[in-house]
């Protein structure tokens, strides 16, 4: 064919194709005029704040043009928007210094999730059936205001939220206070109330510590997954990297003591198994050897410690010697070690070890982020046990998923006459709501965080919207302010909008603080420069203070040893932490670093214990406690004691979008409702279970490693 003929032909076929399209309206793509000035192909970067955990890492968001399918005046079409494309760590942010964890990276999928709640909705079916019908914002706000007006006792308004220090939470607290309701209940499955209370006693700061890992020569961890999920993991991992290879010719040593190897324990030079509920005794054993003249520690001689913990006396002596040689040393406690009925003992024991380490003439590795105690206290999570309310507001909390049956939260919530949720997704608890008032995501509205730890600078992070809201959503603090104004007797809130509330907070810090928000997503000051509260400044453990006499109280476990021979440890998973990110597909398909499991639940069993029970990898096992049972595939792990089984938390949602609904099992459902005897916080590592093999591998354990990729998957049969 001649070139000319070819062109003619394509012109004709092209035209006819276009004409055909005109005849079929469904083939037309309507392009609406964009609302914003967009330069295609040019990226902008805007600061934001990571919403996933309380660490409050700074973000920089890449913004570019993208096509978004939408409706205008009943007409479906496509419009160009400025869309967030990628989340990266903010390089100048003092907490994450340019880095960002996997959960933070995946947070962008919160905004673009296909199952987001796109507009206010009202319950249309029975409670819990998650049948909703759309309503307008005016209708929704009027309905909520009406319910609040109808309260005969204003104390009957309950508010459940994640205890994340922020101005956002201050708006909610202010609303409740002015309304006459109690403060919000701060609920987090893996909460840190035990350590905060212990730190209040030891250091005068009811706050999580910031660790100076980068200058430590010896770190000893007690159960704390500080490189994975606990406290401020990105900041702590940066310090850890420095400790290992950041100083020429010096490499810090790291020992982890715990009954199940966490991701953090997997990085230790030496992982030491101690019997569940005795970890703090090892800390006091080391402290005793470092301060032999201290009468308060006299009961913790190596032999006595070995008897209680199962850690050889010689090992404890060697550890104490090494610490003495390799100072400065630092002890870190957290996670399951504080989740026994004697959790407070372990916290105090490790604080004591730190006091002894500091007393030996070296700088303490423990500090406290200044100003983070400047927020008002919340009600403890244990208040969920006695929840009785006429109206319940749910803000970023999923207590039905994250509390043991024995707390009766499901029944209590069923009895609440009216529930409104601000959730962007229908989760286990929001499914019971009467009204959903969907929040913007952190990219679409204002967002802020007052990190409790992770930096020795006073950090206040805040950022405005980086893109326009995709749907008919509204910022929750703004909704609260509007509801306050719509009450029969309106409440005068101190701010007209959420961003005004944030700005008021920044104006208190200093005259230039607010300008930094647009520039870098927050304001941070050196300690001593500009302080946010009177109690600012880290108070390291005082070497002079006498070490209090500590009595080891053995932990209580639910279920007797004969019927329930194994300790049960649910643990925060690297992908989902407490389960709140289980609906993000990137995290579902991210292989778990230690097992390579994806899209799965599993039970970790010691290989010798498994052999005794006739359990092989992938076999379906049933775990039973006094509270109930669940089934999941087995994974054999030499990093767990033969007297324990463990399970990651995150899967097993009744409902949580297409990616996480009814996938795997939720270990929280079989937890006994035991609490730390001193603080009343949930002792989530205090349940005993029995375990039985109930079937061959059923394919529910999906691993990335193992088989060749292009081989069909054959399950092992016995």
């Amino acid at each position, binding site marked *: 064919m001649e070139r000319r003929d070819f062109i003619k032909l394509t012109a004709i076929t092209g035209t006819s194709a276009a004409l055909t399209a005109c005849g079929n309206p469904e083939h037309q793509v309507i392009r609406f005029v964009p609302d914003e000035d967009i330069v295609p192909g040019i990226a902008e970067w805007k600061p934001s704040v990571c919403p996933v955990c309380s660490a409050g890492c700074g973000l920089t968001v890449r913004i570019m043009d993208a096509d*978004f399918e939408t409706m205008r005046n009943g007409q479906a079409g496509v419009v160009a928007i400025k869309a967030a494309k990628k989340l990266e760590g903010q390089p100048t942010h003092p907490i994450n210094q340019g880095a960002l964890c996997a959960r933070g990276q995946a947070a962008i999928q919160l905004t673009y999730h296909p199952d987001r709640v796109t507009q206010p909705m009202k319950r249309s079916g029975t409670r819990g059936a998650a049948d909703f019908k759309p309503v307008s914002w005016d209708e929704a706000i009027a309905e909520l205001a009406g319910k609040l007006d109808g309260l005969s006792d204003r104390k009957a308004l309950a508010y459940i939220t994640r205890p994340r220090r922020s101005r956002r939470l201050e708006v909610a607290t202010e609303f409740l206070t002015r309304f006459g309701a109690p403060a919000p209940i701060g609920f987090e499955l893996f909460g840190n109330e035990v350590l905060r209370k212990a730190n209040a006693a030891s250091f005068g700061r009811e706050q999580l510590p910031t660790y100076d890992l980068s200058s430590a020569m010896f770190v000893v961890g007690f159960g704390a997954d500080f490189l994975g999920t606990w406290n401020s993991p990105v900041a702590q991992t940066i310090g850890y990297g420095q400790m290992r290879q950041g100083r020429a010719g010096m*490499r810090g040593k790291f020992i982890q003591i715990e009954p199940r190897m966490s991701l953090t324990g997997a990085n230790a030079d030496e992982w030491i*198994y101690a019997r569940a509920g005795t970890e703090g005794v090892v800390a006091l054993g080391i402290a005793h050897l470092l301060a032999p003249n201290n009468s308060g520690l006299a009961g913790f001689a190596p032999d006595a410690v070995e008897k209680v913990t199962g850690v050889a006396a010689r090992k404890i002596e060697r550890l104490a010697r090494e610490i003495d040689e390799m100072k400065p040393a630092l002890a870190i406690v957290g996670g399951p070690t504080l989740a026994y009925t004697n959790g407070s003992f372990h916290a105090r024991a490790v604080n004591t070890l730190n006091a002894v380490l500091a007393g030996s003439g070296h700088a303490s590795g423990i500090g406290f982020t200044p100003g983070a105690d400047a927020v008002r206290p919340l009600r403890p999570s244990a208040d969920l046990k006695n929840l009785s309310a006429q109206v319940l507001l749910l803000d970023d909390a999923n207590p039905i998923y994250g509390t043991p049956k024995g707390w009766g939260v499901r029944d209590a919530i069923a009895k609440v006459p009216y529930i409104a949720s601000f959730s962007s997704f229908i989760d286990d608890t929001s499914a019971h709501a009467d009204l959903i008032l969907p929040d913007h995501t952190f990219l679409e509205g204002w967002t802020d965080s007052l990190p409790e730890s992770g930096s020795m600078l006073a950090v206040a992070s805040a950022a405005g919207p980086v893109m326009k809201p995709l749907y008919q959503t509204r910022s929750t603090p703004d909704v609260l302010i509007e509801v306050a104004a719509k009450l029969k007797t309106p409440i005068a809130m101190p701010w007209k909008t959420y961003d005004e509330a944030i700005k008021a907070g920044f104006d208190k810090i200093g005259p230039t603080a607010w300008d930094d928000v647009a520039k870098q997503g927050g304001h941070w000051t050196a300690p001593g420069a500009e302080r946010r509260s009177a109690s600012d400044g880290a108070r390291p453990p005082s070497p002079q203070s006498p070490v209090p006499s500590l009595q080891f109280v053995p932990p209580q476990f639910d279920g007797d040893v004969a019927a329930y021979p194994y300790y049960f440890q649910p643990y925060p998973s690297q992908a989902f932490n407490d389960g709140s990110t289980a609906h993000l597909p990137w995290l579902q398909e991210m292989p778990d670093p230690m097992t390579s499991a994806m899209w799965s639940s599993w039970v970790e069993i010691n290989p010798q214990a498994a052999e005794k029970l006739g359990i092989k990898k992938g076999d379906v096992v049933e775990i039973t406690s006094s509270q109930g049972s669940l089934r999941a595939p087995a994974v054999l792990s030499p990093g767990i004691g033969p007297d324990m089984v463990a399970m990651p938390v995150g899967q097993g949602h009744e409902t949580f979008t297409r990616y996480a609904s009814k996938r795997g099992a939720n270990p929280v459902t079989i937890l006994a409702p035991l609490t730390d005897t001193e603080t009343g916080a949930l002792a989530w590592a205090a349940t005993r279970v029995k375990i039985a093999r109930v079937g061959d591998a059923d394919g529910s354990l999906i691993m990335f490693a193992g088989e060749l990729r292009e081989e069909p998957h054959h399950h092992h049969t016995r």
Partner: protein
Amino acid sequence: MAARWGMAVDLDTCTGCGACVTACHAENNIPTVGPEQAAVGRAMHWIRIESYWDGEFPEARMKFRPVMCQHCDAAPCEPVCPTYASHHTEEGLNAQVYNRCIGTRYCANACPYNVRFFEFYNPEWPKPLQVQLNPDVSVREVGVMEKCTFCVQRITAAQIDAKAEKKPLKDGDIKPACVQSCTAKALVFGDLNDPESEVSRLSRSPRGSKLLDDLGTLPKVTYLAKQSLA
């Protein structure tokens, strides 16, 4: 002299956290395949964290190793490609031209590192997840082999910027998504032809070794051994 891109991975600081895995998905438009396809071994992770148990309880230890395309100088994936989709660039990258790929999968068979991934189906991003896609990286369709590119789009962008600003590229100017996200700074990327670059310095470390070195593939990724005192 053209650059020769390489990476160093410090196994002493890598904690196995998996930030690089998700960062790579976000940057490179890597689809999630869902549980059914993942179960038959079709999940795609251009970078993965390998974990190895060492010893038995209670002396058990775990070792992590992030593995991505090793960008071999003598890459077994390249000569087997009948369409030259899998080829070597002037800057030493093992590149994949998706438009040329006809899906023979010879390259994946030849690769000893198991870092090539085949699109068995067209990728799906239930709307509006597709809005997140990075416009700098092409979305691969069914029948195409894909792999780590060392974030070639970032390399090219930095080179264009440097040229426009008439400034030389500095060591550290280019960070692939995995390197940028790495919290413990275990991953370092740079020009191996620049003896002063950090990656060159680390690659000369006595702790350094190559993955499956004896195969003679001449990888440009150097692993620095875990330096345990225990």
